[in-house]
């Protein structure tokens, strides 16, 4: 009995104390003494109130389900996919669901959420707001001046992406929407970085074929094969005049005796 209780305790504590990767709704209070902003953010009179009104979160958690739209298993799955995307692209990805924009319009809320929390310099953020009559969604980007990120997540692509997932959001299929969102942003990244696919003039996705490399390969291999065959053919044309007369010599008959071998002269000449 005691042993059973002991094992039950161990089993239960596994779930109590084992660190979860599930979405957090934990926010931290910002104060005038500690604004909890990243080191590169300068607090001024113009942005102080925006900072104080922006939720402070742990930037490593990535999925902030304030509106509680996802189940635990869905949260776990989405966080895993967000982490995979970040490893692949090296960009940060944050997803926020909320029913309170803290007085901001969704665009400002999104930008503030990313800028005033300790996310990477380069990344993207999706905010889903369901507090109003209709849900609102917004996607923001943060990039260095030389970054490829703005090219990968251009305005056109952002618009395409949001338009695609909005239907699911409206139908309250929040998991599907965010799952598709992650797939799409990952796809855009792979599209532009694999260099295997390009978008043609009509906007169609086409595989990029390395024509020049193929032509060079085909030419080189053809040339090598032809040269090898010519060399093989030339072997036939070298008619070896063997004159097998050496095989006709009776070895038992060979008799060569040196009967005289005497020096008759000696000549000395200067070497050239």
């Amino acid at each position, binding site marked *: 009995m005691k042993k059973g209780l002991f094992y039950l305790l161990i089993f239960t504590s596994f779930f109590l104390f084992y660190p979860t990767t599930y979405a957090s709704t934990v926010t931290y209070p910002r104060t005038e003494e500690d604004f909890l902003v990243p080191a590169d953010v300068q607090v001024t009179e113009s942005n102080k109130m925006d900072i104080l009104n922006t939720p402070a979160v742990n930037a490593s958690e990535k999925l902030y389900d304030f509106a509680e739209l996802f189940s635990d298993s869905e949260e776990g799955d989405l966080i895993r996919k967000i982490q995979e995307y970040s490893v692949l692209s090296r960009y940060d990805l944050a997803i926020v669901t909320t029913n309170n924009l803290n007085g901001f319009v969704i665009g400002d809320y999104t930008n503030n959420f990313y800028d005033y929390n300790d996310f990477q310099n380069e990344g993207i953020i999706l905010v889903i707001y369901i507090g109003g009559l209709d849900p609102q969604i917004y996607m923001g980007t943060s990039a260095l001046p030389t970054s490829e990120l703005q090219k990968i997540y251009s305005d056109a692509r952002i618009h395409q992406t949001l338009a695609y997932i909005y239907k699911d959001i409206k139908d309250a299929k929040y998991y599907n929407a965010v799952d598709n969102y992650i797939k799409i942003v990952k796809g855009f990244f792979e599209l532009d970085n694999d260099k295997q696919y390009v978008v043609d003039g009509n906007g169609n996705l086409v*595989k990029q074929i390395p024509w020049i490399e193929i032509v060079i390969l085909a030419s080189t291999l053809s040339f090598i094969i032809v040269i090898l065959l010519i060399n093989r*053919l030339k072997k036939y044309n070298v008619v070896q005049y063997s004159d097998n007369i*050496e095989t006709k010599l*009776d070895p038992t008959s*060979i008799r060569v*005796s040196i009967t005289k071998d005497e020096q008759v002269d000696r000549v000395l000449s200067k070497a050239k």
Partner: protein
Amino acid sequence: MYQDSEDNGMNYGIAARRFHCRDCNASFISLGSKTIEYCCVCHSNNIETKNDVYEKKPYIVPFRKTLEDAKNDYQKKVLFHPLVPFVFKSKATIEAIQKVYLPVIVVDANLQGTVDFLAGDKTKIMKEKVAFIETKKYSVLADVNLNYHHIILNMTSKLQDRLFHTICDYQFDQLLEYNPNALGDSAILVDDKDLNAVADLGRQRIMKHAMAVIKSNINHELKKVNNNGALLNFVNSKEVLVPVYLLTVHYKDKDYIYLMNGENGAVSLELVFGKIEIILFSLLMFGLIFLIAFLIAYFL
């Protein structure tokens, strides 16, 4: 079919059909009933026929390889080679391979006597810091005896010696005596070389080899024949018909020859690559590799 005619009791001449090619001047004999339509050397059909008497050779080396063996061997060498011009591979060409008997003389030879050499050795020496070459000259006398067996002397000018000697390793220990049945339908090339000229060539070959053997026994760096007192005698000569399979392919004003030893299957073959075939094959290879590379790039 034929009748032997007697001449002073010796059974020499046989009534036969003699064919003469007007293009290459080859003459050949057929003892069989089959009419030969093409020259066995150049495959021309510009041949004239007349009845003649054939001076038979006393010995034959029989065919041990069949015509099918020769055709298969030839096909194996040319058929799947993409650069060989089509004329080499055509059915008509392959069917043109012919069984031919070549007239040769097989002799034994003995070289005996004394050869006087002037030999020398060079060494570099230093004298008072100046380099000199010291050449020591020697008078060397070599007493020699060498026996050669079964030297083959080609008696027809229609087959070059350089080609013939690459395949002429026949076994002469078991010669057949002349037998018209063994000859069958084979064409027999008529010997048209001067015997003395052939013998001289044979002597030169033997002497050249013999000198190399003798020089290898002289322990000096430089060797030069001063006086060759060795005598070369031909003994035990026999006139023999040796079997070959012969094909001549005419391509761009040149003749290319396929020659197979009818006894042991040794082959000499001259081939050429055609420029058009090279271009076509290159294009084909290019297209094939291009297609494969494209498919790999597209689907992977």
